[in-house]
């Protein structure tokens, strides 16, 4: 088990390193950052001054390793727009995004698992069809549009919840529904498929033959086994959702890391963009790592891989 964890950890670090290298070079290839700071019509002297201060005229590999070294010690540079340390900005905003992520995944799990189980218990029943409908619609609905429709109905027409901001709990209701619904279809489908598979397994037939209460079979025997892949999927979805929070946060003006990303992108704030891409990919890597470990812990057969 420990060797397995170490192997996965090594792979995760290598992936994080590669992602940061790619995003760093991508953003710096897009144009001369010195011109971006000094302005389109800047004189050669101005550009030279910017280069002297930030060192953009050095080879990109040198700049990358310098940035990486600082990033490893928690120094992500200064934001060009806010003129504050990027790490302070992100720490400040991350709590909102984390809260949104946790609320959303809870919403998705609470909707998807009961629906998936109910659908698998009676295939082709009304509830199965409802579950299918929810997941098909969820896959096709653009989340930014869904968010706007919710604002129109629940904030403007009915006046039940605030449309934008992040100061109270009520501000999180609509964003949670939008982001949670985005993760629901995949979890629901996997729960249903997993339950169907487990329910046709021999040990369930044995349990039935023994005359066990069918509710007990369902929850004590079947669900426990069907839920294993669902948990790891939920961890992976969590990683995806944090990346997708940028759209949801910008619709609801929820001041989290996603909103910060949108602000920094529209203001060409390279250090902040850089850091956020790194942070979001680290989250994804962390959650997939967690999913792998959870899986291996619950299912010893996977530890050999």
């Amino acid at each position, binding site marked *: 088990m420990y060797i397995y964890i170490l192997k996965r950890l090594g*792979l995760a670090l290598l992936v994080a390193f590669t992602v940061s290298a790619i*995003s760093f070079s991508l953003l710096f290839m*897009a144009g001369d950052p010195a011109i971006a700071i000094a302005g389109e019509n800047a004189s050669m002297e101005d550009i030279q001054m910017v280069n002297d201060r930030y060192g953009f005229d050095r080879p990109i590999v040198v700049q990358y390793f310098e940035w990486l070294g600082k990033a490893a010690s928690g120094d992500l540079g200064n934001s060009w727009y806010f003129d504050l340390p990027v790490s302070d900005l992100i720490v400040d905003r991350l709590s909102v995004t984390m809260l949104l992520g946790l609320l959303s995944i809870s919403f998705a799990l609470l909707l998807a698992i009961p629906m998936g189980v109910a659908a698998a218990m009676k295939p082709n029943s009304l509830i199965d069809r409802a579950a299918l409908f929810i997941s*098909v619609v969820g896959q096709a609905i*653009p989340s930014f*549009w869904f968010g706007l*429709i919710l604002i129109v109905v629940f904030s403007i027409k009915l006046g039940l919840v605030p449309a934008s901001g992040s100061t109270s709990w009520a501000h999180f209701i609509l964003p949670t529904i939008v982001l949670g619904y985005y993760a629901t279809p995949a979890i629901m489908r996997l729960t249903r*498929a997993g339950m169907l598979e487990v329910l046709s397994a021999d040990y369930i037939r044995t349990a039935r033959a023994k005359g066990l209460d069918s509710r007990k079979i369902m929850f004590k025997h079947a669900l426990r086994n069907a839920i294993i892949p669902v948990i790891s999927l939920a961890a992976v979805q969590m990683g995806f959702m944090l990346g*997708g929070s940028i759209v949801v946060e910008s619709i609801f003006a929820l001041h989290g890391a996603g909103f910060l990303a949108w602000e920094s992108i529209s203001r060409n704030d390279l250090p902040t*963009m850089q850091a956020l891409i790194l942070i979001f990919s680290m989250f994804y890597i962390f959650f997939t790592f967690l999913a792998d470990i959870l899986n291996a812990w619950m299912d010893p057969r996977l530890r050999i891989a």
Partner: protein
Amino acid sequence: MSETSITSASTEKKASAPKKQKTPVHQLSPRAKMLHRALRHKGLLFGLFVMAIIVIVALFAPLLAGHDPYSQSLLARMKPPVFLGGTWEHPLGTDALGRDYLARLVYGARISLLIGLIAATISACIGTFMGVLAGYFGGRIDLIVTFFINVRLAMPVVLVALAVVALFGGSLLVVVSVLGLLLWDRFAVVMRAATMQVRKLEYVAAAQVLGASLPRVLIKDILPNVMNHLIVIFTLEMAHAIILEAALSFLGLGVQPPTPSWGLMISEGKEMLLFESWLITIPGIALFFLVLSINMLGDGIRDVTAPEGRN
């Protein structure tokens, strides 16, 4: 001489491989059976029907639009659509610049379809190439490809796409290239798994023993047998690309105005959210039905080509 014998042998196998001829209820050819299943698959037919309508609308946009999607009119601003008390002069009303909303919607179908098709084609090429190589050779090549899939998955798509568009400038070309270069992961994952299965089949070994060259084995023997998976993933990623384009344009970092993109129309309508919510409802519904039809088409093709994989 050996050339012809390989092809005939492999085509015979190909025809029977996906079916396994479990229960020959009626003596139809595999292709006819597939057609039979397709015609009874409601989701597939629905997807096909809606998709066909949108494609026809996109193809014949100039005939159906009635107005120019770019021409503005100060006198005809914010006219309501006909079902909200408007006139048939502008069936879906006009936007804040007096542009005919139906014309913009109809031309917008072209943008969405174009972006979906091209982006999915680019990513299909990248992903299939990587996946087939990894699945066929295994070993070190497989490790490298799997590593790159992991790296790609760890990059937040929306964030990277937004950043790249912001830095390189928003144009159809940039948006399509970014999406094409970002969405290949699922192609690679599925193609890798499918190729691993096909590689073990006897006819591939037969072709190798007969001395077929590597490209020949890959293209003539492997690729046709993973084609159904390829088509299914293609539809999914096309839908994915269309939604992402709309999201990027909505955030102001995708296709630029005055191009009639549905995402951009929603973004422009957002300003009038309080009073004129139909401005965002109409392009949103169009977007929803396009993505829905592509997804249902993909699910349907998966069911029809692999009947044992239903549910």
